[in-house]
């Protein structure tokens, strides 16, 4: 069974540019997460979905970040106008339903904003 896939694996931008990250979760997983992981820190939740619905986006900087999962399968995270402080690895994870089910992470997209 294929794991969580993400693309691109790397992105380098100038400040003010836009970028999109794409995630394909494990088939059958109804819950999908986006995390931001700055260098030498733990992953920090940005947003998560159950099917196509946003469950929690309280940590998503809504002025510049947006995330969608229109059909409850793949998802896209977009940064409209990147800042140097957005430099981090962006991780996607998915999990099946049920309490305490394991989250499966993709390899991440490493973003550098110059």
């Amino acid at each position, binding site marked *: 069974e294929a794991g969580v896939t993400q693309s691109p694996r790397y992105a380098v931008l100038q400040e003010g540019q836009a970028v999109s990250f794409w995630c394909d979760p494990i088939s059958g997983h109804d819950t999908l997460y986006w995390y931001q992981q700055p260098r030498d*820190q*733990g992953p920090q*939740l940005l947003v998560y979905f159950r099917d196509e619905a946003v469950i929690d986006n309280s940590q998503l900087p809504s002025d510049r970040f947006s995330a969608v999962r229109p059909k409850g399968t793949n998802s896209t995270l977009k940064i409209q106008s990147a800042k140097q402080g957005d430099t981090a690895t962006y991780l996607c994870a998915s999990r099946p339903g049920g309490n305490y089910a*394991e*989250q499966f992470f*993709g*390899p991440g997209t490493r973003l550098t904003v110059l």
Partner: protein
Amino acid sequence: SQWGEENLQALSIQEGEDVTMNCSYKTYTTVVQWYRQKSGKGPALIILIRSNEREKRSGRLRATLDTSSQSSSLSITGTLATDTAVYFCATDAGTGGYKVVFGSGTRLLVSP
């Protein structure tokens, strides 16, 4: 913040040694999860311990949980070079494991 220690810790040991990593948390959790993240990869769950368990073992891994002191530890016995990774503990923020909050982690380097 949920976590008592905010900065990434670093440990460097020789293959074959045993190692213990600790974390403390500030608010109630029903489970503590330990994740391993190897270079260039996403985190992977290696052991989960529930609030009604004091100890959980899986192969060379042993996790403990002390709910009275709100702390957890992960021990690895007979380390291998392939155990080199960053180890994170994570709590569930009382959501049935749907919303997981990660600590800052421990970077473990095991030299052959």
